[in-house]
């Protein structure tokens, strides 16, 4: 990691900064994103990039982007990237990882992509213990298409395709992906975190790092579910949206470790 950076002083001479406290992760490209103001995709991107930096794996990382708001994610990471068909990122990642076994392959998928149209692909990637990492963004809604009901939409939640609020008797119940995938032997790490405040963001980063370490150790399939906000489609201010994650989503989607295999626990214990 870089320990020095430069700032422009008044006489235009670049001088070393004494102590660097914040910089753009190397694994992020220097570009603007298209995400809405207040959306937590930016936070999730940054956390993943920081982890890639800290693990020193930017050069061998391959991102598989989904269809959804993060369809252009490979434009924001400075790593090799692919764009999968809707829901098929775990299958595409499987193909990439099987022929590039030394690379670090991760998918970044939303809830419509992973939990709805792509549920078979993610389950079977986990069944096979595919050595990939899945970053799963759960914001309880289809963002890119303009706020329709997702498999993760909570009971009573108003969306553009559940205008009276989600009626679970007619449309089914919210899906709990971290719990679901934790039941499969090929899954070595399945946890849920939230991005609604600083403390939880720090916890999310730790989880993302363990998920990538699981892949680097060749243990199997790892997934981090991140509760995220969608102010635009929820019709809220960014801060109200973060409060809604805390007050409405966290009770429905309890944060926690649903599966951590012993190899990862032992490693963490030594630190």
């Amino acid at each position, binding site marked *: 990691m870089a320990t020095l950076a430069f700032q422009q002083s008044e006489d235009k001479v670049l001088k070393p900064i004494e102590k660097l406290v914040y910089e753009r992760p190397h694994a992020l490209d220097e570009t603007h994103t298209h995400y809405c103001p207040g959306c937590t995709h930016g936070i999730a991107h940054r956390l993943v990039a920081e982890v890639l930096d800290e693990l020193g794996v*930017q*050069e*061998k*990382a*391959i991102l*598989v*982007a989904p269809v959804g708001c993060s*369809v*252009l994610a*490979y*434009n924001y*990471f*400075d*790593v*090799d*990237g*692919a*764009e*999968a*068909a809707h829901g*098929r990122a775990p*299958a*595409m*990642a*499987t*193909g*990439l*990882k*099987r*022929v*590039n076994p*030394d*690379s*670090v392959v991760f998918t970044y998928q939303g809830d419509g992509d992973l939990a709805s149209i792509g549920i*078979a*692909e993610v389950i*079977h990637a986990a*069944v*096979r213990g595919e050595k990939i990492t899945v970053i799963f963004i759960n914001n309880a809604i289809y963002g890119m298409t303009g706020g329709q009901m997702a498999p993760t939409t909570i009971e009573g939640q108003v969306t553009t395709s559940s205008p009276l609020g989600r009626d679970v008797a007619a449309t089914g119940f919210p899906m709990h992906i971290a719990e679901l995938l934790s039941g499969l032997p090929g899954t070595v790490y399945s946890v849920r975190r939230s991005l609604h405040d600083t403390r939880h963001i720090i916890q999310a980063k730790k989880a993302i790092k363990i998920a990538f370490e699981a892949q680097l150790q060749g243990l199997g399939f790892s997934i981090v579910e991140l509760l995220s906000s969608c102010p635009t489609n929820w019709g809220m201010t960014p801060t109200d949206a973060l409060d809604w994650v805390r007050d409405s989503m966290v009770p429905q989607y309890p944060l926690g470790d649903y599966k951590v295999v012993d190899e990862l626990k032992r490693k963490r214990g030594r630190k």
Partner: protein
Amino acid sequence: MAKELLKGNVAIAEAAIRAGCEAYFGYPITPQTELLEHMSKRMPELGRTFLQAESEVAAVNMVYGAASAGVRVMTSSSSPGISLMQEGLSYIAGSEVPAVFVDVMRGGPGLGNIQPSQSDYNQVTKTAGHGDYHPIVLAPSTIQEAIDLMVLSFDLADKYRTIVFMVLDGAIGQMMEPAELPPMRELPTERPSWALTGKGNRDKNIVTSIRLGAQPLADFNDILQEKLAVIEKNELRYDELYTDDAELVIVAYGTAARVAHTAVKRLREENIPVGLFRPISLWPFPYQRLGELADRVPTFLSVEMNAGQMIHDVREAVGRDVELDFFGRPGGIIPLPEEVEDKVRAMWRQQELAAQIN
């Protein structure tokens, strides 16, 4: 290498391996399953990738992933499975990564049956997914030709960064014939410059089929069409029998061409001047050569194992000024040579009568 008695599906799998196939992803479906089974044994022996996917949908996307990594990769399936792969095929075409597909066709529509058929002609030659593109489509009619075209498929896929389909019906997949396998090729030690391998010290590579701007997508389509035009010019393949002096030409491919071949030989013994034109590349379709024949030949007959799919390309090739008739058996039935002979005799009588009246 000496000739061996080989089953079609097995011969194709082994030919793919010897052509340098590094990864295979597939799903069981009759009548191609022996291909997958052979791969499941041989690929791990050679330290290469074999994976039985959870569905054809997953298989094609695994192919997409491995193709994006720049290795020689293939899958095989049969008609309903190819239907499921259409989404992935379109993404692969939109990303311009090379990939090879084998379609051992069966009767449709729907679940249809598992009998030999040529039901996928339209499905594979007319884009094989949404958007404007064509895969290269090669159709062998013997096991030796299937072996040779399998090797060629990988070379063409790499050369043009395109999808190559080898299509055969279940009869060629299931039967045994003496044939000679090619020598084992060395695998390349390096990946193409565009491949996803982790960026290392270079700039990042991106494999994608999304071009959000209207003009960028239009520009990409222009480039794609230019490439397809080059393929149309360079990759025409066909075979002819007795077309020099023929006054009636049968057009047929695959097993239908074998049946027609037998019929043509017998009809020649009756002094009926019939010939056989056998497209080997179904896309690009040999329009020009057939058109040249139509300048001289007044009557054509399209023989297919379906309800009439290739006949529309034959019509486009020969124009409206010649007679074009159809004989086909849908439903997974292989037409008998005798049936084709009867059809040709009837057509020939009409032709002679018409000539006498004129």
